[in-house]
């Protein structure tokens, strides 16, 4: 199997597996317990917290709070900020956020919040002047992602943070789920107040995430109950998963593989665009403004779902931007916001690489894909 779907999820790294395994067997205590076993568990959680803080470049270890997943982190960040300042009823976000942000903001809009949905250019980039113009005294929150999950396009959160600080008193939340482990991050030198991450995107298992909460930021709890995580997030800590997240962050920092992944991605992207006539890139051509692991490519007049199925039969895992639900055939909100034509958006494929991909796998993909596209192009009633 050739796995080119690392933006969906990643395999658990062997180092991560080894680190978490003892916590699924002999170290089974509750980190809130006062006995020796409990204290050992607590120690493991705190080590993981340091590892996460270090990867994110947090100023203080206590700025890291563990959650169950990236979506929980995003939901909590948004609702937690609004709960502390009920008089402010304005939110700024983008049209290309992940559903964990987009759908929460959509619900808030239905509840009467005023939401500004910033658009993007055809290359997927934000207009920072539009952000500047949208900021108001009653803006409670600005929620903007660091890396787009579909195209890999990066938003300049350093600059965005400065604009938010300069022109408003809004809290700045960043959905960083797709970026962590793929590019260097240094939160202490930014104006980011809240930053969400998810473990399974960087070789930890599914079911663990974290939220960076800048010191002294007031944030209402989302899950209420016990006094865990300094009363910020109730629920018994998932120690094996948290240890795994820590180990994954440590691995990402020690051996980041960014260059190696980028070289393979470039080879794949260049190869596809050169070999296949109806292929075009979605997102900016400027690779410095995209994640080093992602290539989102449209094959015009061909159905993405069918490309996915034939690649799957060839043992290659990818994602498509188009999803055929029972009653609609919608292309992705991100590609729609970028004004990608319908016939191209329906044929979009996301290739997302990771640290375990090899040159031989990219060669195989480049050999198999043109035949698949040719076969499917011959099936299209739009192609003569």
């Amino acid at each position, binding site marked *: 199997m050739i796995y080119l779907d690392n933006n969906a999820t990643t395999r658990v790294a062997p180092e991560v597996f080894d680190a978490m395994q003892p916590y699924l067997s002999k170290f089974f205590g509750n980190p809130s317990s006062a006995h020796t076993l409990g204290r050992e568990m607590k120690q493991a959680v705190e080590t993981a917290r340091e590892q996460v803080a270090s990867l994110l470049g947090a100023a203080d270890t206590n700025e890291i709070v563990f959650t169950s997943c990236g979506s929980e982190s995003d939901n909590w960040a948004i609702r937690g900020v609004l709960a502390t300042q009920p008089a402010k009823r304005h939110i700024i976000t983008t049209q290309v956020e992940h559903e964990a942000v987009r759908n929460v903001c959509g619900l808030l809009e239905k509840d009467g919040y005023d939401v500004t949905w910033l658009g993007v250019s055809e290359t997927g980039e934000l207009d920072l002047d539009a952000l500047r113009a949208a900021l108001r005294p009653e803006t409670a929150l600005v929620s903007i992602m660091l890396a787009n999950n579909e195209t890999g396009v990066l938003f300049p959160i350093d600059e965005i943070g400065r604009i938010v600080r300069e022109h408003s008193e809004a809290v700045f939340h960043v959905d960083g789920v797709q970026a962590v482990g793929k590019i260097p991050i240094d939160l202490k030198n930014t104006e980011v107040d809240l930053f969400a991450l998810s473990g399974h995107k960087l070789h930890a298992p599914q079911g663990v995430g974290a939220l960076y909460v800048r010191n002294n930021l007031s944030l209402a709890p989302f899950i209420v109950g016990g006094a865990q995580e300094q009363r910020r997030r109730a629920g018994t800590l998932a120690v094996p998963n948290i240890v795994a997240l820590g180990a994954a962050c440590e691995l990402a920092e020690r051996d980041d593989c960014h260059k190696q992944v980028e070289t393979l991605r470039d080879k794949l992207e260049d190869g596809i665009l050169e070999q296949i006539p109806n292929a075009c890139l979605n997102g900016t051509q400027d690779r410095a403004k995209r994640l080093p692991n992602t290539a989102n490519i449209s094959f015009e007049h061909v*159905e993405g*779902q*069918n490309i996915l199925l034939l690649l799957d039969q060839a043992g290659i895992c990818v994602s498509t931007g188009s999803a*055929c639900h029972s*009653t609609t*055939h919608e292309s992705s909100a991100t590609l729609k916001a970028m004004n990608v034509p319908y016939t191209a958006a329906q044929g979009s494929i996301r290739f997302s690489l990771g640290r375990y991909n090899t040159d031989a796998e990219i060669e195989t993909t480049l050999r198999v894909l043109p035949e698949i596209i040719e076969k499917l192009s*011959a*099936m299209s*009633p739009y192609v003569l």
Partner: protein
Amino acid sequence: MGDADEPNFVGRAASLICGAHVRFSLQVDGEHIVSQAKFKAAGCNVLVASSSLLTERVVNIPTADAAVIGQDATALRTNFIGLEAEREHCSQLACDALMAAIREYSDAARGEWVGDEALICTCFFVSEHTIEREIATRALRTVAEVTRACNAGGGCGSCHQLIQEILDTQDDLPR
């Protein structure tokens, strides 16, 4: 997959729900047997699979039998185990395109027909005279009643309008 060799009969269907588009092309021999069936589709995997299954099933059988298969999208959908009923519109779209291609053939066959009596239903080979006689003797009032009485209109449906016109004319006559 592809296009049937010329001369062929083409039928299309498109969905306003999802934007999918499918085209069937059939080649039919002198005995009304489908000798080639091909499709091209821009749509989901269910549409492609439905179209592919249909082209396999309708080849080497009479157009009338092919029309009977094309009438039942539900039966076609049940080939895909675990598929939600809401996806039936994908199978339906494939059936619609097949039926359109068969009607295209039937209309052409009707036009080319040389015989003593005008041919109305090309699927089941029913003449205008037979239909008039059935309407008169059994006092038929609807197309469905005509189909039940003599099979006319039971295949591709391309002659429903013609049968209705015959019914309308008969209505005008004193009984």
